């Protein structure tokens, strides 16, 4: 199974049915895998903090969702994480497609991508970085277990080491 198929199979095992997303190339792999597996509802957002609100609303109603976004988008969601998910202790899994790191071509991605883990560390939000194909299931499932046990946000980072970098129009 490709990494994205494994991730969505774990989401399904944990009844995480609602995929709230801002797209990037890694997120599209997850959406494609979810369409193939079936049983999910994908909701496109205009901005990532909306996704925190939707996931929290779903959770208060007894349903499970996830925010799927690139590292740049995580920056748009910080106050919602702090003032809602953390303050009210609401489990809120986030799967982040990493940009700005190994192999990046776009200068505008670099600062946010490379500070994502530091920002999440400052908020005491645990991060689980997946770099190897043989760790996808363990890291995804382990992160979800922590999320629902702690009733708090957790972040899963899908790295370029695992999923490859975007070729783009790199300066050579």
């Amino acid at each position, binding site marked *: 199974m490709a990494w994205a198929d494994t991730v969505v199979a774990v989401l399904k095992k944990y009844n995480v049915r*609602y995929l709230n997303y801002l797209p990037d190339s890694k997120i599209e792999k997850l959406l494609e895998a979810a369409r193939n597996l079936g049983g999910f509802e994908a909701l496109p957002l205009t901005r990532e903090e909306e996704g925190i609100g939707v996931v929290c609303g779903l959770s208060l*109603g007894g349903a499970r969702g996830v925010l799927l976004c690139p590292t740049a988008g995580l920056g748009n969601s910080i106050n919602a994480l702090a003032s809602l998910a953390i303050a009210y202790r609401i489990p809120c899994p986030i799967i982040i497609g990493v940009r700005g790191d190994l192999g990046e071509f776009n200068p505008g991605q670099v600062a946010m991508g490379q500070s994502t883990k530091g920002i999440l560390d400052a908020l005491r939000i645990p991060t689980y970085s997946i770099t190897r194909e043989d760790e996808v299931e363990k890291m995804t499932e382990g992160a979800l277990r922590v999320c629902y046990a702690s009733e708090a946000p957790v972040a899963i980072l899908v790295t370029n080491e695992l999923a490859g970098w975007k070729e783009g129009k790199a300066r050579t």
Partner: protein
Amino acid sequence: MIDRTEASKYLVSKLTDELVVTSLGNEKYDLRVSGERDRNFYNWNAMGMASSMGLGLAMARPDLRVIVYDGDGSLLMNLGSLATIALREPKNLIHIVWDNRSYAMTGGQPTATAYHTDLGAIARGAGYPKVERIETIAQFKSAADRALVEPGPWFLHCLMQEKPVVGGGLPSPTAIKHRFMDAIGAHH
């Protein structure tokens, strides 16, 4: 111009099992004094999130009507949620915006709706099928009565006059959450 406390008390008097989620502004205090309910979710400080939370709740519980108490400042911070709600089209969502044209909790600084911005027109443009502009209590009662029985999503744009806040402080965030979830039998 309507009185938010009067309108809120009317609405709450009509409620049975509906869920209400507020934004962080003074509307949360009016909801409380309208009648304390386990199915009220009060927002301490997540500005802009009420509409998105209401959408998530409406998706999770299509069997219940979900009412959002939003403010003009808060909605202006999350205008994109109008487009997302419109595309998802939750029939059980009633989005009320109490528009006092100001950031009332921080000194009454004017918001964009004090100038040229019409939130009802934005909601209509975003794709909400049911948008009502409300300037009198009679209009509010009529719109609320219909919104509580007819499919939405509804957008009730309530033009109001801000006045001094009534009521006391809120319970802790986790107390609010647990009471709300227990009331509807929800589990994380």
